[in-house]
């Protein structure tokens, strides 16, 4: 079955996509206050050594996110 949306963990290394919305309210609160807004350009930089976190750039700002956190950020297809 084809999924109707993508999220950050689906990005390939160095792939960039635009963030649409957040699916988790607590995290949305934290990320928006850090300046991660819907509409931001997210670039996947690399995975953590144990694969459970991502190094991303959000509008040029470097950030580390856990897989669950990253998965709650829905991207434009």
């Amino acid at each position: 079955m084809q999924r109707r949306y993508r999220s950050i963990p689906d990005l390939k290394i160095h792939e960039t996509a635009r963030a649409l919305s957040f699916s988790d309210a607590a995290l949305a609160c934290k990320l928006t206050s850090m300046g991660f807004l819907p509409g931001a350009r997210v670039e996947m930089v690399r995975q953590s050594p144990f694969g459970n976190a991502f190094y991303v750039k959000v509008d040029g700002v470097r950030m580390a996110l856990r897989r669950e956190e990253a998965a709650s950020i829905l991207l434009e297809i």
Partner: protein
Amino acid sequence: MSGSQRLPRIGVIGNPNSGKSTVFNHLTGLRQKTGNFPGVTVDIKEGNLRLPGGGEVTLVDFPGTYSLYPTSSDEKLVSAVLSDQKNEFFPDAVVYIADVNHLEKHLLLLTQLLDLQLPLVLALNMADMADELGIKVNVSRLSEKLGIPVVFVSGRTGDNMNRLVSEIEKLIPAIGNISRKAFFDMDATEKQVAEAVRLNLGENNPYRALQLAHHFEWLPFLNESDRATLATIVQTKNFVSLRAQVEETLARYDLFTPIVEDAIQQPQQFPDTPTDRIDAVLTHRIGGPFVFIAVMLVIFQAIFDWSAYPMDWIDNGFAELNTWLQQTLPDHWTTELLTDGILAGLAGILVFVPQITLLFLLITILEEVGYMARVVFLFDRIMRRFGMNGRSVVALIGGSACAVPAIMSSRTIGNWKERLITVLVTPFISCSARIPVYLVLIGMAVPRVRIGGIIGAQTLVFGAMYALGVAAALFAGWTLKRYLKTREPSFLAIELPVYRMPDWKNVGLTVWEKVSAFIIGAGKIILIVSIALWALSRFGPGDAIERAATKAQEEAAAAGLGEAETEDLTAQKKLEASWAGQMGKAFEPVIRPLGYDWKIGIGLLTSFAAREVFTGTLAILYNMGSSEADINDRSENEAKATLREKMQRETFSDTGQPVYTFATALSLLVFYALAMQCMSTLAVVRRETGSWKWALWQFISMTGLAWLAAWLVQIIFA
């Protein structure tokens, strides 16, 4: 302004890592920790600033926070202070520090402060970097749109600090009579909530009233009836806090983004900066952890090898001084107090200054350059296995210098359970106070040989002690994870700051502050314990000491001992009869299974106040056993016999077996690695967890574990 004697309070507030502490340092000259790690300041610090007009204000450096909607306890501190006008740290006015290179992200909190009707000045910090990146700001446009003064500054170079100070001065008349139009328009529900809070709790500022409704569950200053009232308001108005927070945040961005875009000219492209190239190595999936291990090995090498020299000088210097004083000063108890009590205590304090300085220096540099945030990213996964969070690594690394500041740094961990586990296990990491104990014991137990001609056996055992500490911390975390429960969310989400060359002035101030806090904090305890110990071992109940002396002399005469041996025996018996001797003897049954005698018992008892007392204690005890004899009869060389040599000569008084066998030294090492022996740490744990319960629990379980492990070692190696 509230009180008449109280100086106006100016809060230094802003997002994490925006340079608040650097600016604060610059303005107050007060020592205060800074670092290129989001969450370096976890507590509130104060310092005074003289104004050119002759007045004076108190600057208050706050922890960084992105918004008034916090997710960790250092951030909560900011919200709690700003929601409570009676709080002792409540600022009368605010210097808002924003990183000019990320202005589009740094103004959210500023707009919230605008709505709290605080007098404000906006300092656009990191002007030096903006220049390099070609970022241009129209300061007057920004100032006009925000309705507050704006100054372009650099905390690092000190550019424009005078302007900032004069703007601060101009804020003072405005204190208490600001009334701006609200920046953010509350929706109907929010307005109703704010109005209800005003009527019931008398909070007249609508935005602060709204804050109470958002945070009533945890705000510490609310009483139960206020809390109940707020809960009812939230419920009857159907106010959904989390959703309102997100909507407010987005609305604020919508309002200030155009202002920033209008006032700032940024180069279009984000260039491939050195940070990206460095991170390609330091956060590499495979290379990253190896670099981390290499960094830790360098630190380990530094403390083991490099600090051994200054430690030796201090040790020998005190030994020389001691001998000289004993030979020069009259033979009187005051001389003994000076040499065996005070000097021994001072030596105990000073001997670990070299390595704690070195450790704080290396850790501060790692923080300043921005490496710590990467470590959080690298190890988040592993730490979660052990009930902690990537941020816990920062506390654990800090614990290798001193557990006290390390435990405080755990405030950046939002989740209560992960934070508690971090607090509870950090003292397992071998701190610098353990090093002198390790060195003495390893020197006795382990021969100075090189294994395979490369690595010294002593280095190896020393390393094993650190490994033991780390293993114990992880094991404890893994166990605690099973038993503690929480429903709080756990976040990683951390900004990875750009790498910067350390600001050496910041580094110097930080190290100085931490080392002196340590010397004063731990030093007091050590000196008091040393002097008390000297008194306890010099005096005894009734005439017990005199009787012991007479008896020893009779025994010696009967056995036909020489003068020196008689002196030794007498001193030994006197010590046994003293208060300290009695305490040690009473304690001996508890530790005899571990292979320890009553002298070590005294050492252990005294080290429950602070473990660094151990070597000092033994020095005092063993000096008493042979000091007079040393000076009069033995060769110069003997007199300077180090503690280590004296300890090696010790035998059990009943069996005549040597006390410090290989197994005993090893078991003592393990005991010191694992036991909780630091009053300062217990006090901090109590404060950070809010009750004695956890501190007590930590004390009992760590010490119990230490006893068990030491006992096992004795059984295996004896």
